[in-house]
């Protein structure tokens, strides 16, 4: 793909859906979604992985048949042998697929090959970017907390394709501890896979009933969904080439179409956000990180609008 071409990508599914539901989700994405790149693989918890492995081949074949570029995602936090085995299994396919590193172990294993760097590998400055490019990174998905100034500075020197998450709950933290199990009074090693009850994560409320975070097993996410529909032209202008949507239990085909329309300039940010809100009536949107504010802040479209 030409380095100047913008592309739309679907990040790895972060939640613990039933294996058949995952398979059917990706089949539908393969067949119907107008999307260029699909990341696939368990990024959060190695314990979920065995249930999905029997479906890997069918999912990958279908995505390829659907004309999608598949990138394999690795775990964000690798601690024990089981985690490392999960990372190694993905890295073993690096000759056939681009593999996205979730931590430095994967970066180490992928060094010298063409690979992708995920948002949980900290690339905050030009020197780090240059290091990973020299190691083989061809695509780098940046941490969601980076503001416009940083994105612009990175894009001005990048030869790798830089990507930013433009839709979905933002991964904020990963832990050795399982908060889903903990919330249910269970230990991690006997978790009963309770994270499967919450297809978009479990909302965390304060004692004053303010919804502000969501937990997903070992992961903590934003409660608000990042929505950079308004900012997409500005992102493209400063040199961001990848626009990543994080999957949710919503109509991802329609959502993808909306972002495609916005990327192509067929629709205004305001109109697109209006339609997105109709598809996700319960979601609250945020764009604060891009504007250098707290991540949960929402800068109104009129204030955020950039000439494009």
């Amino acid at each position, binding site marked *: 793909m030409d380095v100047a071409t913008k592309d739309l990508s679907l990040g790895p599914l972060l939640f613990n859906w039933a294996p058949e539901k995952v398979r059917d989700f990706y089949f539908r994405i393969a067949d119907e979604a107008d999307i260029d790149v699909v990341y696939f693989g368990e990024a959060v918890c190695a314990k979920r992985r065995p249930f999905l492995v029997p479906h890997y081949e069918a999912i990958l074949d279908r995505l390829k048949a659907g004309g999608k570029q598949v990138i394999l995602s690795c775990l964000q936090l690798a601690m024990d042998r089981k985690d490392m085995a999960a990372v190694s299994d993905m890295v073993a396919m690096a000759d056939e697929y681009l593999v996205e590193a979730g931590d430095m172990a994967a970066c180490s294993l992928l060094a010298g090959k063409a690979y992708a760097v995920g948002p949980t590998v900290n690339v905050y400055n030009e020197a780090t970017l240059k290091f990973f490019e020299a190691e083989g990174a061809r695509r780098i998905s940046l941490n969601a907390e980076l503001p416009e100034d940083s994105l612009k500075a990175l894009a001005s020197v990048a030869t790798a394709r830089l990507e930013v998450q433009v839709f979905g709950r933002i991964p904020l933290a990963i832990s050795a501890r399982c908060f889903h199990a903990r919330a249910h009074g269970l230990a991690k090693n006997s978790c009963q896979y309770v994270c499967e009850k919450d297809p978009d994560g479990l909302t965390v409320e304060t*004692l004053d009933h303010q919804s502000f975070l969501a937990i997903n097993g070992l992961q903590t996410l934003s409660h608000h969904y990042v929505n950079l529909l308004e900012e997409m032209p500005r992102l493209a202008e400063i040199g961001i080439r990848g626009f990543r949507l994080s999957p949710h239990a919503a109509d991802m085909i329609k959502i993808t179409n909306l972002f495609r329309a916005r990327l192509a300039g067929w629709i205004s940010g305001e109109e697109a956000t209006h339609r997105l809100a109709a598809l996700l009536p319960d979601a609250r949107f945020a764009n604060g990180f891009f504007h250098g504010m707290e991540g949960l802040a929402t800068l109104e479209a009129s204030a955020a609008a950039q000439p494009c």
Partner: protein
Amino acid sequence: MKKLELVCPAGTPAALRVAVDAGADAVYMGFRDETNARNFPGLNFSREELAEALDYAHARGAMVFLAVNTYARAGDDAPWRAAIKSAHDLKVDALILADIGLLAYARETYPDLRLHLSVQASASNAEAINFYGQRFGVKRVVLPRVLTVPDITKLNGEIDIETEVFAFGGMCPMAEGRCTLSSYVTGKSPNRNGVCSPASHVAYVNEGDILTSRLGGFTINRFGAHEQAGYPTLCKGRFKAGGEAGYLFEEPTSLDISAILPELAKAGVTALKIEGRQRGKAYVKQVVTDFRRAVDTAAAGGRATLDMAGLSEGHQNTTGAYAKKWM
């Protein structure tokens, strides 16, 4: 068995002298800016203070480690490069880094500078640690607080650099350097600004006998008259996720591994790190004195019992992830 090295916090020059006098083998600190992960008002060192600290510590046989462990800003990494240059020029005993770009810069520009990998790099497995060793010549890794003693034993067999583990003080339940919770709620981040849940965004509200603590407008905890109110660090609050309210991420406890020092030494650990650059002199004096005794006792084949609950957050201690049940 080799004696564990005791690495102690120096938030201020005064705390540094106390720690050295109480028996620290090494002290660590940062400059008074965003280049280190304890960028709090009233803390840290100027260049002149670091030079004096080096004289004071070296005259007493203690080492000095400088932490430059935030992530350099794109378009403006000058403060970080200047901090690394000062580390070299002032001849610190080790420089503690997390950022890949800074590691590469330090390795290339000052090849003789001894590099330690900060916990903020969250290197939690042998493959990652060896990568930092091979690419940047890192000599020691500060391990994330997510590994059990058997994990550490196994790890030390698979890497050829030293390991330093957290021994006492605050607990991060999240993988360090991979957490943007504070950034999400306050706009200030550990990685970018060296702060977590900053005081500038904290409010305490009294309603009768009830004290509510807030961060960035969000309620983090609520205390009755009989409860001691803790600082509203985001991940240490009481929240609701489905069921009843509780400490969803982490109890307000402190890490204390003084009871398992012989096991850690046997696991091949080189050094113990005491957290708490934000703490006062009295705290530093007691913790370093007690740990000095515990380390010496363990090296002589004994097991010291410390009672430092009075110094701990929430007056409770835990061995954290070193014992698997924490997870």
